[in-house]
């Protein structure tokens, strides 16, 4: 019960961070909040007879989220090294 509410709160805060942050790393941190909250909720929903399945799915979620974060950070650092830009408004065009 208490975990579900906490996770819902963390997820909503993650959405808020994605909406209001201007620095791209802040947006990525918001996405991390959502993924972490979802993983805990997955385990809450899967406790009981599906516990092993929920744990293994949580493990795969962990892998996917880590890959997402690493690619995202590589993009941020490369974009900054190329154009010295790290804020979301400064990326008007995707090409080039």
């Amino acid at each position, binding site marked *: *019960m*208490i*975990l*579900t509410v*906490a*996770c*819902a*709160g*963390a*997820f909503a*805060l*993650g*959405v*808020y*961070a994605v*909406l*209001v*942050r*201007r*620095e791209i*790393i*802040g947006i*990525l*941190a*918001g996405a*991390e*909040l959502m993924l972490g*909250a979802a*993983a*805990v*909720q997955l*385990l*809450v929903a899967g*406790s*009981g007879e599906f*516990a*092993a*399945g929920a*744990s*293994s799915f*949580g*493990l*795969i979620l*962990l*892998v*996917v989220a*880590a*890959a*997402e*974060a*690493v*690619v995202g*950070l*590589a993009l*941020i*650092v*490369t974009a900054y*090294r*190329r154009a010295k830009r*790290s804020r979301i408004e400064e990326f008007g065009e995707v090409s080039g």
Partner: protein
Amino acid sequence: MSAHDLAVASAAALVLAGAAGTALARSATRLVLSLGAFLLGVALCFLALGSPLLAAAQVFVYIGGVLVLVLFALMVVGRGDGESPRVESRHDPGAALVALGLFVVLAIVTPKRPSGIAPPEMVSPLAVADVLLGSGIVAFELAGVLLLAALLAVLVIVKSGGER
């Protein structure tokens, strides 16, 4: 209030406090500290929900790996000289309303475990291995392929960035 309830409550408090700090902190240092608290809280939640394997993996991958990378990226991108870089945000009521509405909907809709029941049994790593190498083998292999793809993608991104 049993020891398990106390552990669950402290894990939930850590998750909420860390998430609030991550979403609202103004300095980059506080942001990373809060994100670390959140990730540690998630690991404690995993432990309280009876999955020590997942908790250890969470600490290993996120706190030892991803968070260090986030800190590296902040050091590269940070603009201040010597000062801790600012992480700006444009707060507006619309976003707050969306987040609040989402919180209410999620808190109502998502399935809950009734409070006060006995702490869940520990899931042994062997049971997880049985699922991952049994019925979940396709997802397991796909996760491996995804990791390889991510590795190559990072190499390509970083190399192409260095040429200019």
